[in-house]
């Protein structure tokens, strides 16, 4: 039922784990099936220098997390914000229809991590004033 790309990312997921001193962390739950995903990002010069994920979910959820980290790595924050469920699914050679909601999870977790980073940045600036 899954494409070869999905199976590849499922069996050899890229960038799994945590970043202890992450600049941004985003956790989202999947309202459809109750799954959970966390993304950790490390930012340097406005770019995603490092990214890692943890996923409690199906094969598609693991593969989309992995693909999202690959797409996001090295991108500027603004570029990374444009990564969407559609672009993740497309890079994986498509997903079964019932599994499209899983790719939401990955993109949302990435965006949540970036928002977290931005929030911290703002707070730091305010404190410096």
């Amino acid at each position, binding site marked *: 039922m899954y494409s070869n790309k999905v*199976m590849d990312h499922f069996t050899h997921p890229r960038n799994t784990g945590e970043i202890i001193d992450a600049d941004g962390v985003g956790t989202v739950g999947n309202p*459809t099936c*109750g799954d*959970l995903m966390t993304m950790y990002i490390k930012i340097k010069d406005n770019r995603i220098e490092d990214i890692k994920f*943890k996923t*409690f*979910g199906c094969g598609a959820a*693991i593969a989309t997390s992995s693909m999202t980290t690959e797409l996001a790595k090295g991108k500027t924050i603004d570029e990374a914000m444009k990564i969407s469920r559609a672009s993740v699914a497309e890079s994986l050679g498509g997903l079964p229809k019932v599994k499209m909601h899983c790719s939401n999870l990955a993109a949302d977790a990435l965006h949540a991590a970036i928002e977290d980073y931005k929030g911290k940045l703002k707070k730091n600036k305010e404190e410096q004033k």
Partner: protein
Amino acid sequence: MTINNVRQIYVDHSAGKPVDSRVVDEMLPYFKASYGNPSSFHRFGQEAKQALDNSREDISKLINAEKPETIIFTSGATESNNLAIKGMAIRNRKKGTKIVTSAVEHMSVVNSCKSLVRQGFQTTFSPVDSYGLLDLAKLEENIDEQTKLVSVVYANGEIGTIQPINEISEIVHKKGAYLHVDATAACGQIPVNVKKDGIDLMTISCNDMYGPKGVGALYLKDSLRIDPLLHGGGQERGLRSGTENVSSIIGFGKAAEITRLEMKSESKRLVKIRDSLIQGLIDPVPYTFLNGHPKKRLPDNVSLRFNFIEGESILLSLALSGVFASSGSACAAKTLQPSHVLLAMGLKHEEAHGSLMITLGRQNTQKDADYIKELIPSIIDRLRNMSPLTPKELKK
């Protein structure tokens, strides 16, 4: 069997079984030689009719029915459950409009009951304990004067728990209701005796006894009357119109005969393999639990849950290593809902998520079990290492 040098181990027998080759042999003549319609007057018809009656007899013997005519052939367990529940409910509408069933039923029972609710009936799903066993006191409470039918699964194929049908029957009859039992998973694995168990109607599946799919039966106690779902030429005592699926029914009879003769030794063999799998997976893998009752359990059923991970990803990993099983996880379901059976036993969503169901069959051996025991711990470790829920001490 091996494909690309990977051993292929099928352990999803509660979902579907291969047809026994002795059954196939018995069926073949009924496709091209004895193709008559059992309702026809001539020799071809009478030959088919005789064969049907022989099958009826084989099946009635297996369940110790009072006579062969109590067996009504249907298109499978789903139809039998529909026929029993709707047929009884509508027939007895004037006497009572409540149906009591359990929280661990097959969807064909659940949805038959729900469809009756839309027609003005009432349904109560009686609760089970953490093993999936019916709470008998609650059951008794739930049966009132309006209740004419109680429908209970003999043993749920997903968790393996066998219900105390005898005690249930006593309660149901004391309260003046009739008992329908869905014996889809049980009949063929454990002795089922409609007289001793006190069963009024019973659903039987053919594929679950290594016969073909698309055929089943309903046992209907001699004195009972129900309304049919299908109207037409009046076959099966008017309870199931439509020309009988002769070749499959012949296979059904043979499957029942084989089951009657071999069930005892086969079940003994499976129990050994089952228990070695259960122990061999629970012991080495922490946070692993058995679903269902450890003893009152179908011989083929290994139903486990591994905390902190999700079942579909377990299935996918197993399939890559040539092992084919199933899961009650929401992510593995078309509906994206966790199994209602697991939730009924009090499991949380995330616990149901990590469920893995291995159901053994005739071609499985202890070697298959050993292979699975070796394979699973590393799969679980890998997935747990990726999960945000896994506690620190388990990380490698």
